[in-house]
């Protein structure tokens, strides 16, 4: 059953007097629940308040868990550990899912503190830590997302002793999030049940009426839920209205996978996966409406990070990490922290994308990581920050052939940047062999659109190349370069355009664009070549089907030429062996311009 149908059925069920969701969507209940939650400081969760990252390591040394001190730039401890789900960080312990248990380790030593077994008829759906408590969602019996009994269990984080258990209204329960003593649990894709962290009592139910609530997320600035966008938990969003100012949604380019947080109904997303490498990073303003902090959202796409204006989608910065993929990342407030598969640890300034931090774990294979570094602002080692256009160029030229969608986006953004060097980069893309046609097309369209009048010489230089079998050279992208030359009014390109018009490998489509460009530029030097082109092919039946190149060349002759060109075209229009479509066009074009030609002719004779 798909999620939409489920939501519809649930919405119907919620109207029933006996429904467990009778008060779902009550803003009073939500206000009351929030009033009970304690404020949360913007600092790491660990008792020492140190910025740490916990690393799931692999490689020849086997599966391990390591704690790394970001400030001291050293590994605090490493323990053998076979993680089946991601690490959650508390005050004194970290917890993670193992094969059949939830395991807690001492945060300072890595020693195992306790282990909470998951029974054979139970399914661990997810877990979190808030202060001194660990909360886990468990389904007993039933099948995944269907049937059975769902419950939330609270454990003492220090000992693993059970504090309470709350049976949920459905077995279709997601992983919890908790903040300031308030536990939020997604239920049946449309509800978020709020429990008292101390007692397990249900305090309120949110009804996400307009989009599925596949995640709940606890941050210092509040509790959030949503799927395609983000609701800040508040009385205003108790009924999940996207019209309320408690709903935020970033404007992002098409290549971005719109993942605001992990789908907590899917236990496989509870483990480190490709999803950690390709998602949106975001934080909200401390209170009030759901507004992204500094109006920025960030995109982590494997080796690339981008900062976007969340309101407009405008690109603010880009970062290209060399060679290896970032397997984990986190927006910790003023920095984007990340770890790569080969052990690079880094941080970027959220406002500029500048690399603030660089450390390394040599010889390690990192599978995933969890940051406990809220509010961490790296000191900022002196690094040179490449310009946005330079970074975008490195993305375009990156040898990794997997990321064409990102490269297409980079070309698009590159084209928006000013400067000759950008035009030069776009020209180089058109010259590069082996790229997908769509990339050439994108670069070419960008060249045409930017109309960079200062770069006519660069364009002319690019057009000077031509095909030569002996030298193993292929022709440049003449069609698109000619269009760009016309748009730029690149006078310097006229000789090269003429040369291409005379070359055998120039396609009809390219010849059409050359003729149009020459007319746009006003390249009267091209008249002999245009005349030769029209006459050479005007009786060639190959142009019977598509006379566009001949039409364009004859139009250019009319635009650039004088009485001699008109006379020639008049002859061709009447000559029976001229291909019929050209004859028809010439008769019409000559008739339409007859008046202007007459005026021009009499003006010329008057001048004489």
């Amino acid at each position: 059953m798909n999620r939409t149908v489920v939501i519809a059925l649930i919405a119907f069920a919620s109207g029933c007097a006996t429904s467990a969701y009778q008060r779902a969507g009550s803003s009073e209940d939500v206000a009351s629940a929030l009033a009970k939650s304690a404020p949360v400081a913007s600092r790491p969760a660990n008792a020492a308040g140190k910025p740490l990252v916990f690393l799931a390591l692999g490689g020849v040394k086997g599966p391990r868990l390591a704690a790394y001190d970001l400030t001291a730039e050293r590994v605090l401890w490493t323990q053998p550990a076979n993680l089946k789900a991601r690490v959650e960080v508390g005050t004194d312990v970290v917890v993670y899912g193992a094969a059949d248990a939830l395991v807690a380790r001492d945060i300072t030593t890595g020693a195992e503190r306790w282990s909470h077994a998951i029974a054979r008829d139970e399914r661990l759906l997810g877990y979190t830590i808030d202060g001194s408590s660990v909360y886990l969602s468990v389904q007993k019996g039933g099948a995944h997302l269907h049937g059975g009994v769902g419950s939330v269990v609270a454990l003492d984080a220090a000992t693993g002793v059970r504090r309470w258990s709350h049976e949920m209204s459905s077995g279709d329960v997601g992983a919890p999030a908790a903040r300031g003593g308030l536990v939020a649990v997604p239920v049946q894709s449309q509800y978020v049940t709020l429990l008292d962290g101390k007692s397990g009592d249900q305090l309120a139910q949110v009804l996400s009426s307009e989009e599925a609530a596949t995640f709940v997320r606890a941050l210092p600035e509040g509790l959030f839920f949503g799927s395609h966008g983000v609701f800040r938990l508040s009385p205003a969003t108790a009924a999940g209205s996207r019209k309320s100012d408690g709903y935020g949604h970033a404007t992002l380019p098409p290549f971005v996978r719109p993942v605001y947080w992990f789908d907590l109904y899917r236990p496989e997303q509870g483990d480190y996966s490709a999803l950690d490498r390709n998602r949106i990073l975001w934080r909200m303003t401390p209170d009030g409406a759901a507004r992204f902090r500094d109006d920025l959202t960030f995109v982590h796409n494997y080796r690339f990070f981008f900062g976007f204006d969340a309101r407009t989608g405008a690109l603010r910065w880009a970062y290209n990490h060399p060679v290896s993929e970032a397997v984990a990342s986190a927006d910790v407030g003023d920095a984007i922290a990340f770890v790569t598969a080969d052990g690079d640890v880094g941080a970027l300034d959220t406002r500029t994308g500048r690399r603030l931090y660089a450390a390394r774990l040599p010889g390690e294979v990192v599978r995933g990581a969890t940051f406990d570094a809220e509010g961490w602002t790296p000191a900022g080692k002196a690094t040179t920050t490449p310009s946005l256009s330079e970074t975008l160029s490195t993305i375009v030229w990156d040898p990794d052939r997997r990321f064409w969608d990102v490269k297409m986006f980079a070309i698009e953004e590159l084209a928006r940047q000013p400067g000759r060097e950008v035009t030069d980069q776009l020209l180089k893309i058109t010259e590069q062999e082996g790229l997908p046609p769509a990339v050439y097309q994108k670069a070419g369209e960008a060249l045409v659109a930017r109309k960079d009048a200062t770069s006519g010489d660069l364009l002319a230089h690019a057009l000077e190349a031509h095909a030569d079998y002996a030298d193993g050279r292929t022709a440049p992208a003449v069609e698109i370069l000619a269009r760009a030359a016309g748009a730029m009014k690149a006078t310097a390109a006229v000789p090269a355009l003429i040369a291409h018009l005379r070359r055998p490998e120039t396609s009809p489509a390219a010849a059409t664009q050359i003729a149009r460009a020459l007319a746009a530029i006003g390249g009267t030097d091209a008249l002999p070549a245009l005349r030769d082109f029209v006459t050479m092919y005007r009786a060639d039946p190959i142009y019977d089907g598509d006379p566009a190149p001949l039409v364009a060349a004859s139009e250019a002759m009319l635009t650039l030429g004088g009485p001699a060109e008109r006379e020639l075209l008049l002859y061709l229009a009447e000559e029976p062996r001229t291909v019929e479509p050209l004859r028809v066009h010439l008769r019409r074009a000559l008739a339409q311009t007859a008046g202007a030609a007459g005026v021009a002719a009499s003006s010329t004779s008057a001048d004489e």
Partner: protein
Amino acid sequence: MVVSLTSGVAEAARKPNKTKKAAPTEVKKVAPTLPAEKLAKVRELLFGEDDQAALDAAKALGQSGASNAYEPLVDLLSVGAPPARTQAAIEALGGLADPRTVDVLEVYAGNRSADVRRRAVKSLAVIKDDHVVAALLTALGDAAPDVRAVAADALAARKESKAGPRLLELVKRNDAGAAPALGLLATPELVPQLAELQGTVDDNVVAAALGEYLKRDDVPDPLRVDVVQTIGRLSGAASTAALVEYLAAIPAKDDRPSKKVAQKLVDEKGTAK
């Protein structure tokens, strides 16, 4: 209709060009001139409705040897014609070998049809004008093997040593049409490079080039011996054919060392078969 209109090439053909288009004096001295009425009649046939008559007229002009026979042909090509007439006119210009037709032939050497280009290059090739060499060198880079081969042969016939490096590049790309020309034009410095292609290029192509080189009179025999031995190491029928052709080209009384080596290699190849 008799055409008086001109395109770019026709203008160029008619304008006196002091630098490159002046007809050689010997042509002016010995070539007959077609009378104006005759020329007008042929022109009408060339531009007329009867295709066969137009083709015949073009052929006749090409065979006339008249110093003004090129004019109606250039006029036809300058205003354009259907492919059959175009090709006939280009071939006819080849028969005239008039330097004043270089421009129009160069235009048609850039035609999209490889067949038209091949004919245009072939007609250019017979014109004794330095300007033609550049066009022939350009044609070595043509995408069509036939066009390249015509240009290569023409450059070899003209003994244009400038073509050597480009021909070597073609041979490196396994272009069989360039191989004999390279053999005819290769300098002694190019020969080791050619020999080194063994294994990376089709042996038949290398053998064709070295075989032509062997037959040249200007090659010292010690170098011939090396070349013969190189050919002997090549596989394929072309290597045997090159040696046999070389032996056939040597006078019976000539007892040069390379002959003995070649004979021995031919015998060995025959035995091996």
